[in-house]
């Protein structure tokens, strides 16, 4: 009989190959990670924690702690019989992600729905929760600074529809036209970068930029806002553009027997969003336009099609899928628009939108039930897009 001499481990990795040591290390590691998370959770919440400590603890525990957690749990899974390990391991890898999604998105979504059936700020511990059924969904509140006393919900519905239609259509249309134009010239990357740049600017920053353009000085003073300067130079009177909630534009007003006025101020806010989103549309569409096969374009030209026909009959049908994706992405973004309205007008002068109203109900009026009802409306509005996205994903997966 020959006894096999176990080779003395040379380095850390070889030590860790030994099952007992591996197990002990992983149990200790797991315990340490848990302790570190508890410690960090308490330390990071305390008011006395020095800022340097907060950032160091946050980054070390947030990165290293999570790695130790994954590595130690993975090693513990190895102890299971192979079949069991294969079944359990995916859930170990998924657990932190799924837990966060559940805690930060899924659970709150249902809780918001639940809250929307209660009045004011229900407190379930103290039993001061008044169930009012669907009353919050009647949206009875009227505008704080109304031009005409009207229920605010109708202003919101009108504005959100206007935002959705105009921003989505204008951004996609402009992005498409620019993408096709830019595709043909050499200066391409510079022009593209400049048009794309607003993508990096925050909605708050963009709002300040455009507030300056729309700025109003009374008649007789020098106009320092670009729009009023141009308007005055053309012979107009200086206007407070953001207060123009009902402008009678001759053609439209006459056609509708004086019943339809144009909320010009909302349109000025919408322009900001178009400025921000056109670059995004352009970049995505431009990639799709480059994917249209040259042979197809050449064949069309040989058949005598001009550039306009090629644009409408070949390029647009070919990239329809991309246009739809870009359109829905912008649509979802527009539905949630908050910052621009919050900074520019706070929703006054009939410029209110869903997300800003929700914020006002939540913080100014302290009416969580009503705020939740607005959030639910927002959620219901994105459900069709959600279903569409899931279907698209399933279709793609089956094609693979």
């Amino acid at each position: 009989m020959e006894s096999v001499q176990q080779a003395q481990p040379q380095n850390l990795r070889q030590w860790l190959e030994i099952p007992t040591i591996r197990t002990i290390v992983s149990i200790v590691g797991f315990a340490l990670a848990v302790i570190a998370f508890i410690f960090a959770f308490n330390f990071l919440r305390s008011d006395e924690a020095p800022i340097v400590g907060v950032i160091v603890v946050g980054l070390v525990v947030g990165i290293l702690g999570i790695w130790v957690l994954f590595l130690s749990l993975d090693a513990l899974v190895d102890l299971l019989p192979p079949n069991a390990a294969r079944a359990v391991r995916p859930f170990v890898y998924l657990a932190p992600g799924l837990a966060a999604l559940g805690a930060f998105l899924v659970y709150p979504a249902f809780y918001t729905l639940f809250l929307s059936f209660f009045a004011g700020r229900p407190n379930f511990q103290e039993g001061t929760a008044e169930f009012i059924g669907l009353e919050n969904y009647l949206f009875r509140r009227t505008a704080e600074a109304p031009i005409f006393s009207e229920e605010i919900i109708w202003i919101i519905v009108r504005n959100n529809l206007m935002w959705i239609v105009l921003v989505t259509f204008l951004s996609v249309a402009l992005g498409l036209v620019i993408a096709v134009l830019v595709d043909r010239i050499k200066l391409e990357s510079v022009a593209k970068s400049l048009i794309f740049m607003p993508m990096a600017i925050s909605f708050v920053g963009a709002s300040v930029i455009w507030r300056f353009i729309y700025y109003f000085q009374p008649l007789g003073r020098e106009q320092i806002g670009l729009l009023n300067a141009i308007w005055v130079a053309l012979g107009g009177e200086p206007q407070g553009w953001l207060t123009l909630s009902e402008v009678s534009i001759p053609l439209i007003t006459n056609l509708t027997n004086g019943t339809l006025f144009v909320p010009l101020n909302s349109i000025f806010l919408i322009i900001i969003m178009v400025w921000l989103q056109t670059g995004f549309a352009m970049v995505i569409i431009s990639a799709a336009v480059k994917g249209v096969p040259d042979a197809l374009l050449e064949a069309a030209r040989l058949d005598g099609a001009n550039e306009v026909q090629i644009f409408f009959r070949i390029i647009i049908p070919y990239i329809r899928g991309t246009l739809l994706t870009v359109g829905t992405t912008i649509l979802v973004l527009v539905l949630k628009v908050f910052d621009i309205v919050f900074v520019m007008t706070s929703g006054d002068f009939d410029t209110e939108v869903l997300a800003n109203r929700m914020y006002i109900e939540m913080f100014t009026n302290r009416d969580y039930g009503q705020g939740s009802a607005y959030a639910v409306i927002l959620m219901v509005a994105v459900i069709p897009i959600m279903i569409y996205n899931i279907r698209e994903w399933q279709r793609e997966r089956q094609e693979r």
Partner: protein
Amino acid sequence: MSTTMETTAKQEQAAANERLARTSRIQRFFNQATVRIAVLVIAFLWTLPTAGLFISSFRTEDAISSSGWWTVFATPFDFTQWTIENYVDVITTDGMGAAFINSLLVTIPATVIPITIAAFAAYAFAWMKFPGRDLLFAIVVGLLVVPLHMALIPMLRVFTALELNGTLLGIWLAHTGFGLPLAIYLLHGYIAALPSEMMESAAIDGASPMRTFIQLVLPLSVPAVASFAIFQFLWVWNDLLVALVFFVRDPSTQVVTSRLSEIVGSRGQDWEVLTAGAFVTIILPLVVFFALQRYFVRGLMAGSVKG
């Protein structure tokens, strides 16, 4: 007789061809020129608003309020109108400097923390078989468009109960949660596209799933991680709503966006403060954007639909 006719016919044909070639050449030139001008005009219009802000931020208070920024092109070398005092004031007395630091403290961990969590989840979704995989991933896809507004009121209550309101930890956690669907989705798209032969041979060589992940999947996924990181960085830095709800316990915990929106409320006419303040908030995203545009675009392509 017949030959002359033939020659004239040929000549006419040739002349017609020539004409056609010339008109199409002229047309092409004209197209090129108009296209060029159109693109230049659009690029100019798109840059103008930011340029106006930038120029104004260096003008004195008197100059800004008495004449439009475009008038500087008449007298660009009149140095009495130029100043950097606006920036000094806005960074010190208006608290934009502190807000800038706060923004960094919020943004960097909120960008880094989701990456590991999402990478593990994406790897499991892409290369492991388990019951309910498709359903769970369909939920992730659905969560991409869920408005985070849905989460604000419940989260605020939970955060208040846990004393997380106004703390850095609270806002890191919030942004981690809100950023995860996109992170998992982006990384999954990339990791699932890795060649299956490679993964199989790694398994045949006896590499454990963890080893495959660390030594093969992660290094190959760097571009996707970079795309997500840039995306999340810009998103968190530019966010106002989440910061307003979870991170304004007192003025010392304001980020650049919430600080700027407060300055708009309190000093909405003081353009020397507003222009400089706005530029402080947008400068870092602009630098990141121009330096890493390639990765950012790649991230966008992979399907950017964030809640």
